[in-house]
Protein backbone atom coordinates (compact mmCIF):
# COMPACT_ATOMS: atom_id res chain seq x y z
CA UNK A 1 0.00 0.00 0.00
CA UNK A 2 1.25 3.46 -0.77
CA UNK A 3 1.65 6.03 1.98
CA UNK A 4 -1.28 8.09 0.85
CA UNK A 5 -3.86 5.38 0.49
CA UNK A 6 -6.66 5.99 2.91
CA UNK A 7 -9.98 4.73 4.13
CA UNK A 8 -13.25 6.04 2.71
CA UNK A 9 -16.77 5.45 4.00
CA UNK A 10 -19.37 4.71 1.34
CA UNK A 11 -22.99 5.89 1.40
CA UNK A 12 -25.58 4.88 -1.18
CA UNK A 13 -29.01 6.27 -2.00
CA UNK A 14 -31.02 3.27 -3.08
CA UNK A 15 -33.76 5.28 -4.74
CA UNK A 16 -34.92 8.85 -5.10
CA UNK A 17 -36.47 10.34 -2.01
CA UNK A 18 -34.48 8.20 0.41
CA UNK A 19 -31.44 9.22 2.48
CA UNK A 20 -27.96 8.02 1.61
CA UNK A 21 -27.21 5.03 3.81
CA UNK A 22 -23.84 3.80 5.01
CA UNK A 23 -22.97 0.53 3.29
CA UNK A 24 -19.28 0.01 4.08
CA UNK A 25 -15.82 1.33 3.39
CA UNK A 26 -12.84 0.89 1.07
CA UNK A 27 -9.30 2.06 0.44
CA UNK A 28 -8.46 4.55 -2.29
CA UNK A 29 -5.85 7.14 -3.18
CA UNK A 30 -8.29 9.98 -3.60
CA UNK A 31 -11.98 10.74 -3.49
CA UNK A 32 -12.59 10.32 -7.21
CA UNK A 33 -10.99 6.88 -7.14
CA UNK A 34 -13.00 5.99 -4.04
CA UNK A 35 -16.16 6.89 -5.92
CA UNK A 36 -15.24 4.61 -8.81
CA UNK A 37 -14.25 1.75 -6.51
CA UNK A 38 -17.50 2.19 -4.60
CA UNK A 39 -19.42 1.91 -7.86
CA UNK A 40 -17.48 -1.24 -8.76
CA UNK A 41 -17.78 -2.92 -5.38
CA UNK A 42 -21.00 -1.73 -3.81
CA UNK A 43 -23.42 -1.23 -6.72
CA UNK A 44 -22.95 -4.42 -8.70
CA UNK A 45 -26.63 -5.30 -8.65
CA UNK A 46 -28.37 -1.99 -9.09
CA UNK A 47 -28.23 -1.11 -5.40
CA UNK A 48 -28.32 2.59 -5.89
CA UNK A 49 -28.65 5.73 -7.92
CA UNK A 50 -26.25 7.98 -6.04
CA UNK A 51 -23.04 7.42 -4.10
CA UNK A 52 -21.28 9.57 -1.50
CA UNK A 53 -17.76 8.85 -0.33
CA UNK A 54 -16.27 10.52 2.73
CA UNK A 55 -12.71 10.12 4.02
CA UNK A 56 -13.05 8.19 7.28
CA UNK A 57 -10.64 10.56 8.99
CA UNK A 58 -13.07 13.43 8.32
CA UNK A 59 -15.82 11.81 10.31
CA UNK A 60 -16.18 13.02 13.88
CA UNK A 61 -18.15 10.47 15.84
CA UNK A 62 -19.68 10.24 19.29
CA UNK A 63 -19.03 7.17 21.38
CA UNK A 64 -21.82 4.90 22.49
CA UNK A 65 -20.14 4.59 25.86
CA UNK A 66 -20.65 8.34 26.33
CA UNK A 67 -24.39 7.97 25.84
CA UNK A 68 -25.48 9.02 29.30
CA UNK A 69 -23.48 12.20 29.42
CA UNK A 70 -23.54 13.09 25.73
CA UNK A 71 -27.17 12.70 24.91
CA UNK A 72 -29.57 12.15 27.68
CA UNK A 73 -32.64 10.34 26.28
CA UNK A 74 -34.75 12.54 28.61
CA UNK A 75 -36.78 9.61 29.85
CA UNK A 76 -37.74 11.77 32.80
CA UNK A 77 -39.67 14.07 30.46
CA UNK A 78 -42.59 11.91 29.26
CA UNK A 79 -44.57 15.04 28.41
CA UNK A 80 -42.62 15.34 25.17
CA UNK A 81 -44.59 12.40 23.81
CA UNK A 82 -48.16 12.57 22.57
CA UNK A 83 -49.09 9.38 24.40
CA UNK A 84 -48.98 11.19 27.74
CA UNK A 85 -52.07 13.26 26.94
CA UNK A 86 -55.40 11.53 27.28
CA UNK A 87 -58.14 12.44 24.85
CA UNK A 88 -61.88 12.59 25.47
CA UNK A 89 -63.93 9.74 24.11
CA UNK A 90 -64.58 9.83 20.36
CA UNK A 91 -61.65 12.10 19.56
CA UNK A 92 -58.98 10.26 17.62
CA UNK A 93 -57.75 12.81 15.09
CA UNK A 94 -55.22 14.49 17.36
Amino acid at each position, binding site marked *: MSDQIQLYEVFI*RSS*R*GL*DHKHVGSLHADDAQQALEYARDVYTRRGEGI*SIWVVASKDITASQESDCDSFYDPLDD*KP*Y*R*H*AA*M*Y*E*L*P*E*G*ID*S*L
Partner: protein
Amino acid sequence: MRDSIPLVSNEQKFQSRIDAEQKVEPKDWMPEKYRQNLIRQISQHAHSEVIGEQPEGKWITRAPTLERKAILMAKVQDEAGHGLYLYASAETLGVTRDELIDRLHTGASKYASIFNYPSLTWADIGAIGWLVDSAAIVNQVSLQNTSYGPYARAMVKICKEESFHQRQGYNIMMTLMQGAELQREMAQDALNRWWWPSLMMFGPHDAESAHSAQSMKWKIKRRSNDELRQQFVDQAVQQAHAIGLAVPDPDLVWNEQREHYDFGAIDWEEFQRVVSGNGPCNRQRLAHHVSAHKEGAWVREAMAAYEAKRRTVPAEVA
Protein backbone atom coordinates in the same frame (compact mmCIF):
# COMPACT_ATOMS: atom_id res chain seq x y z
CA MET B 1 -30.89 10.14 -38.46
CA ARG B 2 -30.01 12.45 -35.66
CA ASP B 3 -32.35 15.18 -36.83
CA SER B 4 -35.39 12.95 -36.65
CA ILE B 5 -34.95 12.13 -32.97
CA PRO B 6 -37.36 14.33 -31.05
CA LEU B 7 -35.46 16.53 -28.64
CA VAL B 8 -36.55 16.09 -25.07
CA SER B 9 -35.86 19.25 -23.17
CA ASN B 10 -34.59 19.31 -19.60
CA GLU B 11 -37.91 20.79 -18.66
CA GLN B 12 -39.84 17.85 -20.16
CA LYS B 13 -37.55 15.30 -18.53
CA PHE B 14 -38.00 17.08 -15.24
CA GLN B 15 -41.79 17.12 -15.52
CA SER B 16 -41.98 13.46 -16.47
CA ARG B 17 -39.91 12.60 -13.42
CA ILE B 18 -42.37 14.58 -11.28
CA ASP B 19 -45.33 12.92 -13.00
CA ALA B 20 -43.82 9.52 -12.21
CA GLU B 21 -43.80 10.49 -8.50
CA GLN B 22 -40.01 10.49 -8.36
CA LYS B 23 -38.34 12.87 -5.93
CA VAL B 24 -36.11 15.70 -7.07
CA GLU B 25 -32.74 15.71 -5.31
CA PRO B 26 -30.37 18.68 -4.77
CA LYS B 27 -27.95 18.00 -7.61
CA ASP B 28 -30.60 17.31 -10.26
CA TRP B 29 -31.33 19.80 -12.98
CA MET B 30 -34.45 21.76 -12.10
CA PRO B 31 -36.24 24.74 -13.64
CA GLU B 32 -35.11 27.99 -12.06
CA LYS B 33 -38.71 28.79 -11.15
CA TYR B 34 -39.07 25.46 -9.33
CA ARG B 35 -35.95 26.31 -7.33
CA GLN B 36 -37.17 29.83 -6.50
CA ASN B 37 -40.66 28.61 -5.69
CA LEU B 38 -39.24 26.06 -3.25
CA ILE B 39 -36.86 28.54 -1.64
CA ARG B 40 -39.82 30.86 -1.12
CA GLN B 41 -42.02 28.15 0.38
CA ILE B 42 -39.43 26.39 2.54
CA SER B 43 -37.94 29.59 3.93
CA GLN B 44 -41.40 30.93 4.70
CA HIS B 45 -42.06 27.68 6.52
CA ALA B 46 -38.74 27.96 8.42
CA HIS B 47 -39.39 31.59 9.40
CA SER B 48 -42.83 30.57 10.68
CA GLU B 49 -41.32 27.99 13.02
CA VAL B 50 -38.93 30.56 14.43
CA ILE B 51 -41.26 33.58 14.65
CA GLY B 52 -43.89 31.25 16.14
CA GLU B 53 -41.68 30.90 19.20
CA GLN B 54 -42.51 34.47 20.21
CA PRO B 55 -46.21 34.32 21.16
CA GLU B 56 -45.60 31.06 23.05
CA GLY B 57 -42.20 31.91 24.51
CA LYS B 58 -43.73 34.93 26.19
CA TRP B 59 -45.77 32.62 28.42
CA ILE B 60 -42.95 30.35 29.62
CA THR B 61 -42.30 32.46 32.69
CA ARG B 62 -46.02 32.76 33.41
CA ALA B 63 -47.14 29.17 32.96
CA PRO B 64 -49.57 28.21 35.74
CA THR B 65 -47.62 25.17 36.98
CA LEU B 66 -44.07 23.91 36.83
CA GLU B 67 -45.21 21.03 34.63
CA ARG B 68 -46.93 23.33 32.14
CA LYS B 69 -43.77 25.42 32.08
CA ALA B 70 -41.58 22.40 31.30
CA ILE B 71 -43.99 21.28 28.57
CA LEU B 72 -44.09 24.71 26.95
CA MET B 73 -40.33 25.02 27.08
CA ALA B 74 -39.95 21.63 25.35
CA LYS B 75 -42.42 22.67 22.68
CA VAL B 76 -40.73 25.99 21.95
CA GLN B 77 -37.37 24.18 21.75
CA ASP B 78 -38.89 21.79 19.21
CA GLU B 79 -40.00 24.74 17.07
CA ALA B 80 -36.46 26.10 17.01
CA GLY B 81 -35.23 22.70 15.85
CA HIS B 82 -37.90 22.55 13.15
CA GLY B 83 -36.74 25.92 11.90
CA LEU B 84 -33.24 24.51 11.63
CA TYR B 85 -34.33 21.42 9.65
CA LEU B 86 -36.16 23.67 7.23
CA TYR B 87 -33.39 26.25 6.80
CA ALA B 88 -30.97 23.39 6.12
CA SER B 89 -33.37 21.98 3.55
CA ALA B 90 -33.65 25.38 1.81
CA GLU B 91 -29.86 25.67 1.80
CA THR B 92 -29.59 22.56 -0.38
CA LEU B 93 -31.10 24.77 -3.12
CA GLY B 94 -28.08 27.04 -3.14
CA VAL B 95 -29.23 29.88 -0.89
CA THR B 96 -27.31 30.84 2.25
CA ARG B 97 -28.64 31.19 5.79
CA ASP B 98 -27.55 34.84 5.83
CA GLU B 99 -29.57 35.55 2.69
CA LEU B 100 -32.63 33.84 4.16
CA ILE B 101 -32.45 35.80 7.41
CA ASP B 102 -31.84 39.00 5.48
CA ARG B 103 -34.96 38.42 3.37
CA LEU B 104 -36.97 37.91 6.54
CA HIS B 105 -35.66 41.15 8.01
CA THR B 106 -36.31 43.21 4.87
CA GLY B 107 -39.82 41.78 4.52
CA ALA B 108 -39.04 40.14 1.16
CA SER B 109 -39.81 36.78 2.74
CA LYS B 110 -42.97 36.13 4.75
CA TYR B 111 -43.93 33.89 7.66
CA ALA B 112 -47.28 32.50 8.75
CA SER B 113 -49.51 35.49 9.39
CA ILE B 114 -51.13 33.93 12.41
CA PHE B 115 -48.10 34.72 14.53
CA ASN B 116 -48.91 38.39 14.12
CA TYR B 117 -51.75 37.99 16.60
CA PRO B 118 -51.01 38.49 20.31
CA SER B 119 -51.18 35.76 22.96
CA LEU B 120 -53.22 37.59 25.59
CA THR B 121 -54.05 34.89 28.15
CA TRP B 122 -52.85 31.45 29.20
CA ALA B 123 -55.74 29.95 27.23
CA ASP B 124 -54.12 31.31 24.08
CA ILE B 125 -51.28 28.86 24.64
CA GLY B 126 -53.92 26.12 24.59
CA ALA B 127 -55.54 27.53 21.45
CA ILE B 128 -52.22 27.94 19.63
CA GLY B 129 -51.07 24.39 20.36
CA TRP B 130 -54.44 22.91 19.52
CA LEU B 131 -55.52 24.99 16.49
CA VAL B 132 -52.36 26.45 15.01
CA ASP B 133 -50.32 23.29 15.37
CA SER B 134 -53.22 21.14 14.14
CA ALA B 135 -53.56 23.33 11.06
CA ALA B 136 -49.80 23.14 10.50
CA ILE B 137 -49.86 19.36 10.85
CA VAL B 138 -52.70 18.94 8.35
CA ASN B 139 -50.57 20.88 5.88
CA GLN B 140 -47.30 19.16 6.80
CA VAL B 141 -48.67 15.65 6.54
CA SER B 142 -49.55 16.36 2.92
CA LEU B 143 -46.08 17.86 2.39
CA GLN B 144 -44.43 14.57 3.37
CA ASN B 145 -45.15 13.71 -0.26
CA THR B 146 -43.80 16.92 -1.74
CA SER B 147 -41.60 16.44 -4.80
CA TYR B 148 -38.37 17.87 -3.38
CA GLY B 149 -36.52 15.13 -1.46
CA PRO B 150 -34.87 17.17 1.33
CA TYR B 151 -38.14 19.04 2.06
CA ALA B 152 -40.14 15.80 2.15
CA ARG B 153 -37.63 14.20 4.52
CA ALA B 154 -37.65 17.24 6.82
CA MET B 155 -41.46 17.02 6.93
CA VAL B 156 -41.37 13.38 8.01
CA LYS B 157 -39.10 14.23 10.90
CA ILE B 158 -41.10 17.29 11.89
CA CYS B 159 -44.46 15.51 11.84
CA LYS B 160 -43.07 12.80 14.08
CA GLU B 161 -41.93 15.33 16.66
CA GLU B 162 -44.96 17.54 16.34
CA SER B 163 -47.49 15.01 17.54
CA PHE B 164 -47.27 16.16 21.14
CA HIS B 165 -47.71 19.84 20.33
CA GLN B 166 -51.36 19.76 19.40
CA ARG B 167 -52.19 17.38 22.23
CA GLN B 168 -50.63 19.56 24.91
CA GLY B 169 -52.60 22.52 23.54
CA TYR B 170 -55.85 20.59 23.50
CA ASN B 171 -55.08 19.35 26.99
CA ILE B 172 -54.78 22.95 28.23
CA MET B 173 -58.18 23.77 26.70
CA MET B 174 -59.74 20.60 28.13
CA THR B 175 -58.40 21.36 31.61
CA LEU B 176 -59.72 24.92 31.48
CA MET B 177 -63.11 23.65 30.32
CA GLN B 178 -63.26 21.41 33.38
CA GLY B 179 -62.51 24.37 35.64
CA ALA B 180 -64.41 27.34 37.03
CA GLU B 181 -66.63 29.56 34.94
CA LEU B 182 -63.91 32.17 34.51
CA GLN B 183 -61.57 29.52 33.15
CA ARG B 184 -64.17 28.22 30.72
CA GLU B 185 -64.80 31.77 29.55
CA MET B 186 -61.08 32.26 29.05
CA ALA B 187 -60.88 29.12 26.89
CA GLN B 188 -63.90 30.17 24.84
CA ASP B 189 -62.47 33.67 24.37
CA ALA B 190 -59.20 32.21 23.10
CA LEU B 191 -61.03 29.99 20.62
CA ASN B 192 -63.08 32.98 19.46
CA ARG B 193 -59.94 34.95 18.67
CA TRP B 194 -57.85 32.13 17.12
CA TRP B 195 -60.50 30.30 15.10
CA TRP B 196 -60.67 32.52 12.02
CA PRO B 197 -56.93 33.24 11.78
CA SER B 198 -56.42 29.44 11.93
CA LEU B 199 -58.67 28.98 8.89
CA MET B 200 -56.71 31.70 7.11
CA MET B 201 -53.49 29.73 7.66
CA PHE B 202 -54.34 27.57 4.66
CA GLY B 203 -54.13 30.60 2.39
CA PRO B 204 -56.53 32.06 -0.19
CA HIS B 205 -59.23 29.99 -1.88
CA ASP B 206 -57.86 27.79 -4.64
CA ALA B 207 -59.14 30.04 -7.41
CA GLU B 208 -57.34 33.07 -5.95
CA SER B 209 -54.10 31.48 -4.82
CA ALA B 210 -51.14 33.08 -6.61
CA HIS B 211 -48.75 30.14 -6.56
CA SER B 212 -51.07 27.16 -6.33
CA ALA B 213 -51.51 25.93 -9.91
CA GLN B 214 -47.81 25.74 -10.72
CA SER B 215 -46.99 24.29 -7.29
CA MET B 216 -49.55 21.53 -7.82
CA LYS B 217 -48.19 20.74 -11.28
CA TRP B 218 -44.68 20.47 -9.82
CA LYS B 219 -46.10 18.53 -6.87
CA ILE B 220 -44.53 20.92 -4.40
CA LYS B 221 -48.05 21.17 -3.03
CA ARG B 222 -50.03 17.94 -2.96
CA ARG B 223 -53.45 19.06 -1.80
CA SER B 224 -55.22 22.36 -2.38
CA ASN B 225 -55.70 25.09 0.22
CA ASP B 226 -59.45 24.47 0.34
CA GLU B 227 -59.14 20.69 0.72
CA LEU B 228 -56.72 21.07 3.61
CA ARG B 229 -58.85 23.75 5.26
CA GLN B 230 -61.93 21.52 5.06
CA GLN B 231 -60.10 18.65 6.71
CA PHE B 232 -58.98 20.94 9.50
CA VAL B 233 -62.50 22.31 10.08
CA ASP B 234 -64.02 18.82 10.21
CA GLN B 235 -61.51 17.69 12.83
CA ALA B 236 -61.43 20.84 14.93
CA VAL B 237 -65.20 21.30 15.20
CA GLN B 238 -65.56 17.80 16.59
CA GLN B 239 -62.72 18.42 19.03
CA ALA B 240 -64.25 21.72 20.19
CA HIS B 241 -67.66 20.16 20.81
CA ALA B 242 -66.14 17.22 22.70
CA ILE B 243 -64.92 19.55 25.45
CA GLY B 244 -67.87 21.93 25.42
CA LEU B 245 -66.49 24.77 23.32
CA ALA B 246 -68.66 26.62 20.78
CA VAL B 247 -67.12 27.38 17.39
CA PRO B 248 -67.57 31.12 16.67
CA ASP B 249 -69.27 30.70 13.30
CA PRO B 250 -73.07 31.10 13.02
CA ASP B 251 -72.99 29.53 9.53
CA LEU B 252 -71.31 26.35 10.64
CA VAL B 253 -73.49 23.36 9.82
CA TRP B 254 -72.96 19.69 9.06
CA ASN B 255 -73.69 18.97 5.41
CA GLU B 256 -75.07 15.44 5.10
CA GLN B 257 -74.54 15.31 1.37
CA ARG B 258 -70.92 16.39 1.35
CA GLU B 259 -70.20 14.71 4.68
CA HIS B 260 -68.30 17.81 5.67
CA TYR B 261 -69.00 20.94 7.69
CA ASP B 262 -70.11 23.98 5.74
CA PHE B 263 -68.62 27.09 7.26
CA GLY B 264 -68.99 30.84 6.99
CA ALA B 265 -67.08 33.30 4.83
CA ILE B 266 -63.52 34.14 5.77
CA ASP B 267 -62.66 37.82 6.15
CA TRP B 268 -60.04 38.07 3.42
CA GLU B 269 -59.63 41.78 3.98
CA GLU B 270 -58.32 41.05 7.43
CA PHE B 271 -56.05 38.38 5.96
CA GLN B 272 -54.62 40.85 3.42
CA ARG B 273 -54.17 43.48 6.08
CA VAL B 274 -52.16 41.14 8.30
CA VAL B 275 -50.14 39.59 5.44
CA SER B 276 -49.18 43.02 4.18
CA GLY B 277 -47.73 44.01 7.54
CA ASN B 278 -50.57 45.63 9.45
CA GLY B 279 -51.69 42.93 11.86
CA PRO B 280 -51.63 43.57 15.61
CA CYS B 281 -48.01 42.44 16.13
CA ASN B 282 -46.20 42.43 12.76
CA ARG B 283 -43.71 45.15 13.63
CA GLN B 284 -43.10 43.81 17.10
CA ARG B 285 -42.40 40.25 15.86
CA LEU B 286 -39.93 41.39 13.24
CA ALA B 287 -38.23 43.92 15.50
CA HIS B 288 -37.74 41.24 18.12
CA HIS B 289 -36.13 38.89 15.61
CA VAL B 290 -33.86 41.64 14.27
CA SER B 291 -32.71 42.64 17.75
CA ALA B 292 -32.16 39.02 18.86
CA HIS B 293 -30.09 38.47 15.72
CA LYS B 294 -28.02 41.61 16.38
CA GLU B 295 -27.57 40.87 20.05
CA GLY B 296 -26.35 37.39 19.16
CA ALA B 297 -23.66 38.70 16.80
CA TRP B 298 -20.96 38.57 19.48
CA VAL B 299 -21.58 34.83 19.96
CA ARG B 300 -21.05 34.14 16.25
CA GLU B 301 -17.95 36.35 16.25
CA ALA B 302 -16.53 34.65 19.33
CA MET B 303 -17.04 31.21 17.80
CA ALA B 304 -15.32 32.26 14.59
CA ALA B 305 -12.41 33.79 16.54
CA TYR B 306 -12.06 30.65 18.64
CA GLU B 307 -12.04 28.46 15.54
CA ALA B 308 -9.44 30.67 13.83
CA LYS B 309 -7.21 30.49 16.89
CA ARG B 310 -7.62 26.73 17.18
CA ARG B 311 -6.45 26.31 13.58
CA THR B 312 -3.23 28.25 14.17
CA VAL B 313 -2.26 26.33 17.31
CA PRO B 314 -0.93 22.84 16.56
CA ALA B 315 -3.26 20.12 17.74
CA GLU B 316 -2.36 18.75 21.14
CA VAL B 317 -1.48 15.10 21.30
CA ALA B 318 -4.09 13.42 23.41
